[in-house]
């Protein structure tokens, strides 16, 4: 960081700040330092760009300024029985709308209907030339023009500073409960997860949590209260072992803590890695090779992503992890990470470099947001 912090109160002021900067990165709630704390970069604090600008429950759409805390959005939706199905992370910690989009990261609930990319309908952002650009439309279906909203998902502040976002929202399941099997071997847990996943029961969340006694398999089911017990039983029958059940407030608290990374020590770096049930083994191998088999981690959303808490005392090994991930063709995003990782929030294997380079050239020719490698 350069120490310079701008606090714009409008998109026009964001544009002005971008035009006047050599290197600048946006910050919302500040919950994901690896996204905004690059060396020498001025900080564009967008927290004053806050507020829900339009919420139409009957349209399933909500629009908010980029600095709006997700907690505010979720509370407003909950009052109408709706929610953000991609299940945003670090909500209680203060994560904002813009930060969630820029990180492109989702919680365990993304399993049911999709991730943030599937629920972002429209964006307004300031590009690297200081121009205010709008993409998408504030309706649930649209195919006009290039899909700039999707391009901004995961852009890590490097393609533009978001100022406003519109999401599709859904009705929240009437009731949810969770089945839990403790202390499984990983391959056993993956196999059981596959069996339940291939069954007819529709699942909200499916996570494997690494613990001292092996892996805990957790399966969350949601829907009409009337049918919930029968559906839980149906899923439990497929597990064919001792199953504990969480319901009501305990269930809600449990999954909220998961997405707040309450299971990781507060000074650990939290990494997100795209995964499939077939590549979980490769990640295990990388960790074993680095003598890190005991790090806290969760294979989340039907084993489509891993969250790994890399211990603070092993920060010096992040470059080794970066190399090992590249060799294993795995990619990681440092969501929460120390300054050492901040110049390059992406670790491991990359694709699409040539296309990304051309897009960066188009939207930020002077490199004011820096370049992703």
């Amino acid at each position, binding site marked *: 960081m350069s120490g310079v912090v701008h606090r714009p109160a409008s998109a026009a002021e964001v544009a002005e700040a971008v035009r006047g900067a050599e290197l600048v990165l946006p910050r919302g709630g500040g919950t994901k330092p690896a996204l905004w704390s690059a060396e020498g970069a001025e900080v564009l604090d967008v927290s004053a760009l806050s507020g829900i600008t339009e919420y139409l429950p009957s349209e399933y759409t909500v629009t908010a300024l980029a600095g709006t805390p997700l907690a505010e959005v979720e509370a407003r939706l909950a009052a109408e029985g709706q929610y953000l199905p991609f299940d945003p992370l670090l909500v209680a910690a203060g994560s904002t709308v813009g930060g969630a989009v820029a990180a492109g990261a989702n919680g365990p609930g993304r399993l049911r209907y999709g991730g943030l990319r599937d629920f972002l309908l429209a964006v307004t952002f300031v590009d690297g030339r200081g121009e205010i650009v709008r993409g998408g439309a504030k309706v649930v279906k649209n195919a006009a*023009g290039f899909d700039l909203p999707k391009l901004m998902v995961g852009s890590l502040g490097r393609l533009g500073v978001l100022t406003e976002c519109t999401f599709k929202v859904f009705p929240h399941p009437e009731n949810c409960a969770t089945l839990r099997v403790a202390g499984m071997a990983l391959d056993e847990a993956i196999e059981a997860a596959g069996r339940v996943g291939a069954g007819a029961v529709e699942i909200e969340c499916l996570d494997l949590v690494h613990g001292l006694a092996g892996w805990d398999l957790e399966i969350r089911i949601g829907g009409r209260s009337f049918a919930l017990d029968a559906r839980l039983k149906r899923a439990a029958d497929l597990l064919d072992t001792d199953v504990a059940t969480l319901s009501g407030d305990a269930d809600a608290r449990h999954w909220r803590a998961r997405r707040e990374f309450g299971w990781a020590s507060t000074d650990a770096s939290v990494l997100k890695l795209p995964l499939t049930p077939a590549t979980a083994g490769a990640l295990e191998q990388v960790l074993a090779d680095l003598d890190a088999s005991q790090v806290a981690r969760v294979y989340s959303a039907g084993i489509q992503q891993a969250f790994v808490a890399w211990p603070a005392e092993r920060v010096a090994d992040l470059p080794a992890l970066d190399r090992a991930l590249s060799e294993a063709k795995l990619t990681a995003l440092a969501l929460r990470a120390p300054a050492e990782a901040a110049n390059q929030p992406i670790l491991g294997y990359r694709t699409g470099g040539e296309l990304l380079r051309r897009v960066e050239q188009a939207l930020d020719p002077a490199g004011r947001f820096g370049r992703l490698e």
Partner: protein
Amino acid sequence: MTTTGAANFHDALTQRLGPDRVLTGAAPMAAYESDALTAFRARPRAVVLVDSAEEVVDVVRLCAAASVPFLARGSGTSLSGGSLPVHDGVVIAMNRLNRILEVDPVRRTAVVEPGVVNLAVSDAAAPYGLYYSPDPSSQSVCTIGGNLAFNSGGAHCLKYGMTSNHVLGLEVVLPDGDVIEIGGDSLESVGPDLVGLFVGSEGLFGIATRITLRLLPKPETYFTLLAAYDSLAAAGEAVAAVVASGLLPGAMEIMDNLAIEAAEAAVGAGYPLDAEGLLIVELEGEKQQVAAESELLLEVVRRSKPYLEHIASDPDDRMRIWKGRKSAFSAVGRLSPDYIVQDGVVPRSRLGEALTKIQHLGEEHGIRVANVFHAGDGNLHPLILFDGRVEGELERAEELAGEILRLCIDLGGSITGEHGVGMEKRQYLGEMFDEADLDAMRRIRLAIDPGELANRGKMFPDAEAPALLSHGPHPLEVAGVISRE
């Protein structure tokens, strides 16, 4: 290009592909001169039939070296003129690239070539209890490559999204012949969503040659309800009530009287001919859940007072109901020698207002309009009926189509929900977006394709693309090979 240059370019193509797979001349190329937007026609320089991704790369490189524009074409079912040839450019026919390379039931993915027909993916996934969700009406002929380029939708988009929500990874030939990989096998990714940018880019960023699709488990059961109303507004109100109830149906469709009449004449779906508005609502999922939801759905729909309701009794009955809906576009051809299928989106709560205004606009222009729409997501498909042989009718129909699009913009919606901008809606993109928005899109296009070779002339309002007006349905449509949505 000089005559010698043109001859050299042609020689290079035939040298690479052999003379049989390089079509030139009016007769062999006739079927490629137009797509499902039949009012336009353009003659390419050549049509090449490629057999492999390597051939796509080589053809693109030859085009790039000679600055010849090109576009990839699947089955030519684009309703926005997206696969209309670029005049004097090369059409790369992708239909032979139709292999399903892999179906992985554990990862729930399919890896396919772009010429694979949409429905073939679901067929290949069926043995594993999986299916490919996006279901455009033309799904028995349209290809995944075209679906991808135009982010095609269908009747079941509200719950599970459009094509873009089901594409995980791509191998892409950029317009200069560079080959890149983007995305992967996982539902999750890291970094800017380049797959998301590529899908729906209307062929302007190059050609996808290998596509990883997400498959979904087939719903255990369906509950399909048909409700008939004596006004279109009442059917619209029922949709609003279903949404307010907290239910999330897989599909909610409405047809008006003219569309019902056409569909009934074409396939005999058993629709009530006297209905002014016909609502189809479908719940899908696991048995217990659907059973619980269907009770609530019936209660909500009955409160909207349909004069007739029908619950699909078995899978055949369900298929019949959907066949009527999916054939509605081509069926309208029975009512009129020519028609334009429009595709606009309005906020769901303003559907009633939009339909009333469309009716008035039709009356003002003296043109009949049939309406079929994906009510769940506010996606209108007005079918504008005209006779191209009557002096001035085509012009009036196009004028009406334009006014409908402006109405969608005014109501806060979009000029296209699932057909894309293509050739047809280029002049309206600038009404939906500001100059700065279009400029950003143009800059991205030029950074990726400085020579504007890939599908030149599409999407951007100021793009050049000579085309001639014509009359009548597409030859493949007459033959029953393609249909419109």
